[in-house]
């Protein structure tokens, strides 16, 4: 009799444990799923915040075409014949992500005739619930100047026409809306420029930020402070304010800035005016980036097992 009772007890306890409700099952699954780490997405939306480089690169196999435009007026323009804007500059660039971490890009600009290229490497990527709270990207840029323009005199020796920029970009996405980055930047000018008082080496500190306004629109801004020069006669610091708008495979970056160039070296050292809305000071631009995906098959890994 006692034995029978015991067996009954074992059975009831056993089934008592086993019969779990659907909610209990979800609780178990919750534990199983927690602790997975992913790299933080969309700290910035493109390779560039607006004009300067961002911490972001594209995933492997992505080719981007960039078409940039910039419009501005000439101060004290007497003839007033221009339609909409007195001056126009266009930039065409392409960049390709060889891996998730390494991107190479190049471009050319009409107004200042600068041919630029850059290589970007993601040293550290921020993780959601992971150890790494920061993202670090290293950028090396090379610019080749081809003609005189405002504030730049082309050197005779062609080797002196090359200039270099090196950056370490440290960024953090604080929450879903706010991302900030700080970029210590070293610039080496290939030639002694009178407008730069003969200085060839500069150190600049860049600040960039993104604030998400809606699911497809974000506000972005950046400021680069260049050390060791008298702001004014030797150029002004870069400031830009703009909006990123994503539409499917296209990212439009609308910008207001005090720079006429698209190139990094020119943007950090060769800006002849301060940021304000007067004629000749305000430059309005749109950058359109078109994203093309290669190696789609490798990523997809979709097995239809119907």
């Amino acid at each position, binding site marked *: 009799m006692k034995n029978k009772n*015991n067996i009954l*007890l*074992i059975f009831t*306890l*056993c*089934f008592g*444990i*086993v*019969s*779990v*409700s*659907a*909610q209990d*099952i*979800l609780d*178990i*699954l*919750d534990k*199983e*799923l927690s602790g*997975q780490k*992913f790299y933080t*997405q*969309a700290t910035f939306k493109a390779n560039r915040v607006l004009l300067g480089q961002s911490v972001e690169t*594209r*995933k*492997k*196999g*992505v080719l981007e075409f960039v078409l940039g435009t910039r419009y501005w007026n000439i101060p004290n323009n007497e003839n007033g014949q221009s339609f909409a804007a007195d001056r126009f500059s266009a930039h065409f660039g392409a960049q390709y992500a060889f891996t998730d971490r390494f991107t190479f890009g190049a471009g050319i600009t009409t107004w200042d005739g600068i041919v630029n290229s850059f290589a970007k490497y993601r040293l550290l990527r921020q993780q*959601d619930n992971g150890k790494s709270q920061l993202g670090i990207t290293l950028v090396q840029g090379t610019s080749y100047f081809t003609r005189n323009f405002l504030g730049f005199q082309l050197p005779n020796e062609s080797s002196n026409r090359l200039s270099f920029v090196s950056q370490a970009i440290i960024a953090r996405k604080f929450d*879903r809306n706010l991302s900030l980055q700080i970029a210590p930047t070293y610039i080496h000018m290939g030639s002694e420029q009178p407008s730069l008082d003969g200085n060839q080496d500069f150190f600049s500190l860049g600040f960039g930020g993104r604030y998400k306004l809606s*699911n*497809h629109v974000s506000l972005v801004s950046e400021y680069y402070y260049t050390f060791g020069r008298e702001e004014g006669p030797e150029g002004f610091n870069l400031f830009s304010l703009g909006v990123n708008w*994503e*539409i*499917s*495979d296209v990212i439009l970056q609308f910008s207001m800035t005090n720079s006429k160039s698209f190139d990094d070296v020119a943007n950090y050292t060769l800006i002849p005016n301060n940021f304000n809305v007067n004629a000749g000071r305000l430059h309005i631009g749109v950058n359109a980036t078109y*994203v093309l*995906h290669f190696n*789609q*098959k490798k*990523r*997809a*890994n*979709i*097995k*239809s*097992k*119907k």
Partner: protein
Amino acid sequence: MNKLVILFFFLHFGAFCQTSNRIITRQGQVSFFSYTSVEDIEATNNQVHSIVDKSNGAIGVSMLLRAFIFKKSLMEEHFNESYVESDIYPKTNFSGKIVDFNADSFNDGIVFLKGNLELHGVQKEIDIKVKIENLGSNLVLTGDFEVPVADFNIKVPPLLAPNIAKVIQVMFRFEYEPYEE
């Protein structure tokens, strides 16, 4: 001594019953498709977790939205950032039961599931037709169903409305094995 033996038996049987009644998969596959004349969107998640309780026909499915892999990496970013907002709602869950559960439910054949699908902070009751293959200790569940985007408060901007199907087709395949804690 006698009590010790009983305790031993109790623990042993307790553990045994638990493992034999619950089955789990940690590599379940869920794919979804959005086909429009403008573009096709396909994504697969190969890390879907699911548990079935064989004693009462209860089923739970849970997956991280970030684990979906898209053909185009930019789509993956947009999916997470702009549509399902996986930073706020990282998971999607289904919890339900087999309709008219009985001893034969886990034999080869078709059963119906009734339950709640939770996505983007919204819960909706859905019915899913499931094909069961019984491979002895393992069980394979496959099936497909449709999810209307508008039901789950997922906003599609008017400009992109032609790119995303109104109804997303979902396909799944879960291969279960005995659950051990």
